[in-house]
């Protein structure tokens, strides 16, 4: 089956529950196809959790949800060994992290200690509990949601942890027409809000990944990527530029994006499309630059030459 068809059906399926957010849904899928973890950031009630649930359902993965609170401990996520009196031995009770898709709700409500417990799992695909390293099931995704940092009762994620999320998405308010449709549906209780159908199985996921690995990135395109990265490191507006990991993330996402559109090669439009989601949370404006991450991405998109000399 054509990749595009699979993806279109998945997008349509998720679009049933999250109205008017097609670009974000596509980016979220792109992130998961590129084997990355996804961070969704927005104000409460914008559909963060809805999106993550829908993604889990569409991919048909085993998933667990952890609501992060300020008193959550690492053991609550990773698991704990309990003494079994009958067998006179310790039994490991795996935590919710032993799943294919972990929904970490409101990740910035918990303490840095618990946040960093996720770190190893996200980076290595394994966890170490009580000195023993245990592999996590494959595939393993983390979809985390968080409230904007300036909200009270939050512990901002450190840059090192932000960097481990391949993409950060912001949902924003729905367009008026989509919001109207949402209101009408709630009004007419007749239309049941149905759970999204499972439409991408593991084989198809694998097929997409193979397709992604075959996408060609030409010299010209890599030049453009390098110019982008160099710009963030040299220009005065940036306190911190893109790391080599950031550059790799950008390439991976652009390739995935190209594959999702049935193209065998990456074009600059792919890079530009994924750029805000991939680079936005990795760039820090310098002290006297008035703009935020969005403005920085905008600078990149406008000022970095695509054609080169």
């Amino acid at each position, binding site marked *: 089956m054509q990749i595009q068809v699979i993806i279109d059906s998945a997008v349509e399926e998720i679009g049933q529950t999250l109205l008017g957010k097609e670009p974000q849904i596509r980016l979220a899928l792109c992130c998961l196809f590129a084997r990355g973890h996804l961070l969704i950031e927005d104000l409460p009630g914008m559909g963060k959790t809805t999106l993550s649930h829908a993604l889990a359902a569409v991919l048909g993965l085993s998933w667990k949800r952890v609501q992060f609170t300020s008193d959550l401990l690492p053991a609550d996520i990773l698991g704990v060994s309990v003494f079994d009196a009958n067998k006179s031995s310790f039994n490991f009770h795996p935590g919710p992290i032993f799943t294919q898709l972990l929904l970490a709700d409101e990740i910035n409500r918990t303490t840095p200690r618990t946040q960093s417990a996720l770190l190893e799992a996200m980076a290595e695909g394994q966890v170490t509990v009580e000195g023993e390293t245990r592999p996590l099931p494959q595939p393993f995704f983390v979809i985390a949601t968080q409230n904007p940092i300036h909200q009270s009762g939050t512990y901002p994620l450190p840059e090192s942890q932000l960097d481990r999320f391949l993409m950060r998405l912001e949902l924003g308010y729905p367009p008026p027409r989509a919001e109207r449709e949402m209101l009408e549906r709630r009004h007419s209780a007749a239309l049941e809000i149905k759970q999204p159908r499972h439409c991408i199985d593991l084989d198809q996921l694998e097929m997409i990944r193979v397709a992604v690995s075959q996408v*060609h990135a*030409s*010299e*010209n*395109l890599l*030049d453009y990527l*390098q*110019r982008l990265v*160099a710009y963030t490191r040299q220009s*005065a*507006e940036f*306190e911190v530029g893109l790391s080599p990991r950031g550059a790799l993330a950008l390439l991976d996402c652009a390739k995935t994006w190209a594959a999702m559109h049935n193209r*065998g*090669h*990456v*074009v*600059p*439009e792919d890079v*530009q499309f994924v750029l805000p989601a991939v680079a936005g949370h990795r760039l820090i404006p*310098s*002290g*006297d*630059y008035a703009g935020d991450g969005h403005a920085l991405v905008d600078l*990149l*998109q*406008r*000022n*970095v*030459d*695509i*054609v*080169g*000399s």
Partner: protein
Amino acid sequence: MSTLQQIPRNALVWIIISLFALVAPHASRLPIWILALYAVAVIWRLQVHRGRWSFPGRWVKVVMILSGFVGIYASYGSFVGLEPTVALLLIAFALKLLELSHRKDAYVLLFLGYFICLTQFLFSQDLLVTLYALVSVTVVTTALVAIHRPGEHQFKLGTLHVASVMLLQALPLMIVLFFLFPRFGPLWTVPIKNHTAKTGMSDFMKPGDVASLSQSADVAFRVKFDGEIPVKSALYWRGLVLSRIEQGVWSALSFYDLPANQLRPQEVIIGGEPIRYNVIMEPTQQRWLYGLKYARSDTRTVMQASDFRLFSPTLIETEFMYTVDSWTDVPVEETLSDWRRTTETQLPPTGNAKTRKLSLELREEAGSNAAFVDLVLDRFRVEPYVYTLRPGLLPEEDSIDAFLFQSQRGFCEHYASAFVFMMRAAGVPARVVAGYQGGEINPVNKTVIVHQFDAHAWAEVWLASRGWVRVDPTAAISPLRIEFGLEEAMASEGSFLSAMLLSPARYRSIPLLNLLRLRYDALTYRWQTWVVGFDSERQFNLLRSFFGETTAKAFAILLLGSWALVLLPVAISLFRAPDIEPVRPLAKHYRIFCKRLARLDLIRGAGETPSQFAQRVAEEFPDYAEQLWQITDLYNQLAYADAQRSAGNAAQNLQHFARVINRFRPKRRSAVLMTRAER
């Protein structure tokens, strides 16, 4: 305003520091109101930075500029000359601070700063001044570095470090340029220092002149002997010969006073080994030079006058070095011309009757001219004459009578003047010689430092078969002055440099201070010989000693070659820089396409992808849409698609692309719109 155009706070602080650093060496020469202007400008700019005040409006600026001009004219009385022009430049520099809002203003200000840094050399080329100039260059460079570092909103001393490292890297080039850069003559002349006083001796002498000169501890000149330094009492540095007396004032003969046949000095038969030495004059704004009798110089610009003194045809405006050979024992001008005899025995017709009478009596008694000289000196020695810096006032009329018979207190010029008067009164040719006597021997580098307080006046008497003979009446009265110098001679009176409390020469009795002073002086000597005195002649000699005879062509090759040698490592390191992108021919062709589209007044933004650009152009000019998309698709294909999978080889594809672009020749925007309007 983009952040790139802003001036970071760190840079502003450094700009203000460099402002003060640059005006400081001029401070003593400037009227006080210019310094006040600097304070006002800085405060104003800081208030602007804090957001309290705003930049001055146009009319305020015009008023400030005009009042600057008026102020200069009021303070200096002219706009011409070095000091008013430098002052004007400094005013402009301060006022530019009030326009400092963008980075480009800072460029103007700082590059002007480098120029201002140079202007201090117009006043002095002293070692300390040079060291200070290096400091100010570093500060200005620091400010220049700081404006290129946006986002530094705190004062950072580390910027200084960066600038220092940069300047140190420039050091090799500086040294190469110093030795090899051609020394041109001045390309233009400015009336330099028309407001600066002339220093040292003047070409006339009235009682009190030398005494007032001896209140100064400034250095007159330095001498380096090739061999042993002669004893101090033999160091009579002849500068001026004063042959004419009018109303008690001795003056030198000017060029126009001499008859044509007297212009050249008489030939002197020299014999024996000369004393050879180099003299480095401090600037005097005068022409005369100093040497031991009988002096000849082989420096090109030193000339000899008919009274055997040395002089320079141009004013000594900077440190000036010349070489002298002296034969101290040879007779000079053995035969005296009639004109010379008349001139050197001339006295005013009347006045000082008692002196004239005494003179004739003594001549009668002596029998010969030589004995007469001894008799007069004996009289100075026996009678209670006092050598003093505080001789008291003498009457205008018959001042020599008053000095010889009543006050009997005087300084060297009194004794020399009275002695020569007595000689001439008896018909013996005699004249006053003004110059310096003795000097301080610097043990550090074996030079003789002659200060202004070594100024002296003595006499020369012409004796048959011996020529002009030096006679110093002061030596008869105060042998200490000649043996040990003025300080010893005035020890009991306590009047040595009494008005110069801060002069280091006054504290010669403190060993450590004295050693420091002498060391610094030795350094100054070296500086003057090797750096300030490094002119085209020395440069040429140096090159010749290394490379043999040099032609202009060889010199040019050497110059360029050495630059290349210094710059080569820099170039290599730049070439090895890893992040230089190769030029992609495809991009070059695409840029040609973009240039063609510029005729339609459509410019691709840097971040605009080729497809987006094509879309935009096609919407506005649908006529070209087909060609546009053909080119854009081809470009996208070649630039981004997998080359291995696409058909044809790379070179052919590129050629094809170039051909397609070559066929695309859009008309000018106006032409297209015109045809559209006609339709």
